[in-house]
């Protein structure tokens, strides 16, 4: 049994030791060939890390919060948290999400309709701190007690008896990084309360007021992107070199001599990829180039600062960073005078630049922005390219990236393509707007510090892994190769690490990849198989 020391919500601020110890034997069971799977023990922090870093939530450190050394330091941080909380509820400082936040903070009736929708909560064996309403309830009680009038009696009456101390702040900060922001809980809420949003807003408070954020998202993420042009640290010169390498590889793999259009003015489409594709999955970049060239699309990519990495981590933790990166993308599109920006296979980049940034753009910055999925659908069914679906005659299932599907409603185009090009396509259960998160959403896919990867691979990826295994049960033997189509870079990052953790290729013959790779693999003109059967 996991050892949770809390008897009620208020214990969150009272317990001195670690609140809960996770027990992997309590996690949801996996289907064959993992029915006898025994989870390895989850990695503990080193003694040095334990001494330096806050870990009293569940023993994991997602954002490496340093422990304050003095009582004054603790008090100062608590005071900062309170001042940030006030700003979170103010029109000027938080117009960006004030109305949705207020509605969610003031109207939860704790009916628990959301609980069973959370893949982390369910996969953990229903660990209380991961219940979707838990972090919202903590924040609600703090607001009621410390920011609203009412006095002692009313606080007790309304259930706001929680103490605000350093431990509460630090645990809440870590807790906001135990939610993938997938928003399945919000989908289930009959009132419309959004606990995913609350997690995101707690992260924002921590970042924008206390300067606390996951290093991979902030310092090595959005700050690096603003400084170098990419969250990977790749500058424009290096970007050009990488494109050259990819062009050479493309020629070696397919015999096609394609020169990737860069910085072409007046093109119809500016295609922006998550730069992770260039480094980890270059075949995705190649496949896009092949398809667009064969279809005669007038397109370009940018090699300029701000134009070649669609990543926008601000979406997950910080409004200022979100806006800054989005405006860089827009600036490049304006400079190149393209008709439209098209997002490659990256879910969060879709959401950041399309619906969310839509409400920060004015005047000439309002430039059309589209998803690649419908454009690919249009190309595949246009007759411009010949396909042989038999080349894709292996089991394929589709993962739905939360940000592009649940948050944007782009559901059908990718399915139409797969149903046409993959004879053994089968849906996951559930799928479409109700599909589960990969487990790496909201930045978890790239958070590799301390012992956090164990939490992600062992726990937050688990529900997705179960879904994948369930979808392939009829051909689960490792000799039948199977493909998880994941049209999203961050999700692919999660699959890479998660499938490796479970040794899924050797045990079940499962690999993952994007949508465009399957399209190119089915092209009559491409003689050699484009998909390589190995876990990259």
């Amino acid at each position, binding site marked *: 049994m996991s050892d949770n020391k809390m008897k009620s919500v208020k214990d969150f601020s009272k317990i001195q030791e670690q609140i809960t110890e996770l027990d992997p034997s309590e996690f949801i069971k996996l289907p064959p060939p993992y029915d006898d799977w025994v989870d390895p023990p989850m990695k503990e922090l080193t003694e040095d890390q334990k001494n330096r870093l806050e870990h009293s939530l569940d023993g994991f450190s997602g954002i490496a919060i340093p422990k304050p050394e003095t009582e004054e330091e603790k008090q100062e941080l608590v005071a900062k948290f309170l001042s940030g909380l006030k700003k979170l509820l103010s029109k000027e400082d938080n117009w960006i999400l004030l109305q949705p936040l207020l509605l969610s903070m003031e109207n939860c009736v704790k009916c628990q309709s959301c609980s069973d929708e959370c893949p982390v909560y369910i996969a953990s064996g229903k660990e209380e701190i991961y219940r979707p309403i838990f972090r919202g309830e903590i924040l609600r009680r703090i607001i009621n007690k410390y920011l609203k009038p009412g006095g002692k009696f009313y606080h007790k009456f309304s259930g706001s008896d929680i103490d605000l101390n350093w431990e509460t702040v630090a645990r809440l900060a870590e807790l906001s990084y135990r939610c993938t922001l997938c928003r399945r809980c919000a989908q289930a809420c009959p009132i419309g309360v959004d606990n995913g949003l609350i997690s995101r807003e707690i992260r924002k408070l921590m970042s924008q007021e206390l300067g606390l954020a996951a290093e991979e998202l902030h310092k090595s993420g959005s700050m690096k992107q603003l400084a170098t042009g990419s969250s990977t640290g790749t500058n424009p010169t290096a970007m050009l070199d990488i494109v050259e390498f990819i062009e050479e590889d493309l020629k070696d793999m397919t015999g096609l001599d394609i020169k990737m259009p860069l910085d072409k003015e007046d093109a119809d489409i500016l295609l922006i990829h998550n730069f992770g594709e260039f480094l980890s999955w270059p075949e995705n970049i190649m496949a896009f180039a092949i398809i667009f060239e064969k279809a005669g699309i007038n397109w370009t990519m940018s090699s300029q600062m701000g134009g070649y990495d669609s990543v926008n981590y601000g979406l997950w933790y910080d409004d200022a960073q979100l806006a800054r990166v989005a405006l860089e993308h827009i600036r490049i599109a304006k400079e190149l005078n393209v008709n439209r920006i098209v997002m490659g296979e990256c879910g969060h980049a879709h959401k950041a630049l399309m619906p969310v940034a839509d409400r920060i753009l004015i005047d000439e910055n309002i430039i059309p922005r589209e998803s690649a999925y419908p454009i690919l659908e249009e190309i595949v069914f246009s007759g411009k390219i010949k396909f042989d679906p038999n080349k894709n005659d292996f089991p394929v299932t589709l993962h739905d990236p939360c940000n592009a599907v649940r948050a944007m409603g782009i*559901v059908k185009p990718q399915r139409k393509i797969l149903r046409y090009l993959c004879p053994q396509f089968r849906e996951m259960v559930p799928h479409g707007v109700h599909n589960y998160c990969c487990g790496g959403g909201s930045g978890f896919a790239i958070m590799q510090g301390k012992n956090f990867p164990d939490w992600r691979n062992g726990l937050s990826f688990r529900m997705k892994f179960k879904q994948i295994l369930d979808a392939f049960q009829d051909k689960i033997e490792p000799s039948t190769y199977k493909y998880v189509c994941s049209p999203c870079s961050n999700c692919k990052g999660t699959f890479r690490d998660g499938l490796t953790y479970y040794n899924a290729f050797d045990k079940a013959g499962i690999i993952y990849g994007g949508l465009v790779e399957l399209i190119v693999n089915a092209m009559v003109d491409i003689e050699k198989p484009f998909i390589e059967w190995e876990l990259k």
Partner: protein
Amino acid sequence: MILLYLFTYFSLFVFIVLVFSKIIKYSSAPVHVRWELYPVAHEKNKYGGSYYEEPKWWKNEIKKSHIAEFWAMFEEIIFLKGVYIHNRKLWYFSFPFHLGLYLIVATFFLIVISVLFDLASLVVLNTDTLFVGILLNNVINIFGYGGLVLTCLGCIGLIFQRATDKKFKFYNSAMDFTNLYFILILGVVVFITLVNSNTGFIESKIFVKNLFTLNFAAINDVSFIIHVILLSLFFLYFPITRMMHLFAKYFTYHKVRWEDEPNVKGGKLEKKIKEALNFGVSWSAPHIQTGKTWAEVATTNPTEEKK
């Protein structure tokens, strides 16, 4: 007796003021970034598809199905569809409880209509022989009695669940029980008045008529006096509780979950965004570079000094 009437006026006044101030608070919030969640009810694709599924979507006219939106809201409000799907155990009690409350609210409005008709000499309260009067009285009785039974049964079930199910117990506050007990006690008291003097809700109708006509006539039935006091207290209590989700639900669905209006050049949204971008920023983490407007913050690169 006049104090009872004055207290009723006061509680109704406070109720209306607090409910409206809450509605104004939500509706006057500044424009926010899009945070919709699919399926969006007014979209044509029932599987949850949006206009983003079309290439060059921005060239198309965006069509909304208001009938689909109305139907989704109807299913959600009347049948608590979300609870039915995601929390069936709770639904068995929550559905009758809410349906009962809707019937009681409908009864209240029908009583007001009866009184207005009576004042306009269209019907005679409870002794009418005309079709409209008979119809009103029968509907009031069916809704009123049915609503009370459903509410009380649902309430008992919800109290039992809150008290015994550990997933509720962990989060319970005194207010959660007070809300339910308050409604249950109120329901029981109304039942007692119906047995005593309020058969067919005649006392309720007369009391409402007295409120309209400023006739502070004496009430002889003690149980009815208690009923009026409790109901007035409930009007004062309701707006400070989470029961206000009744009104908030409109905003959570229409202004957040289903709000997918694209921003177009020269449109109303753009105007609101321009206003918001001029709000000052006081967040104090170093990378924010506080003291500027949002427009300035968004166009400032915090890494530039380091280069």
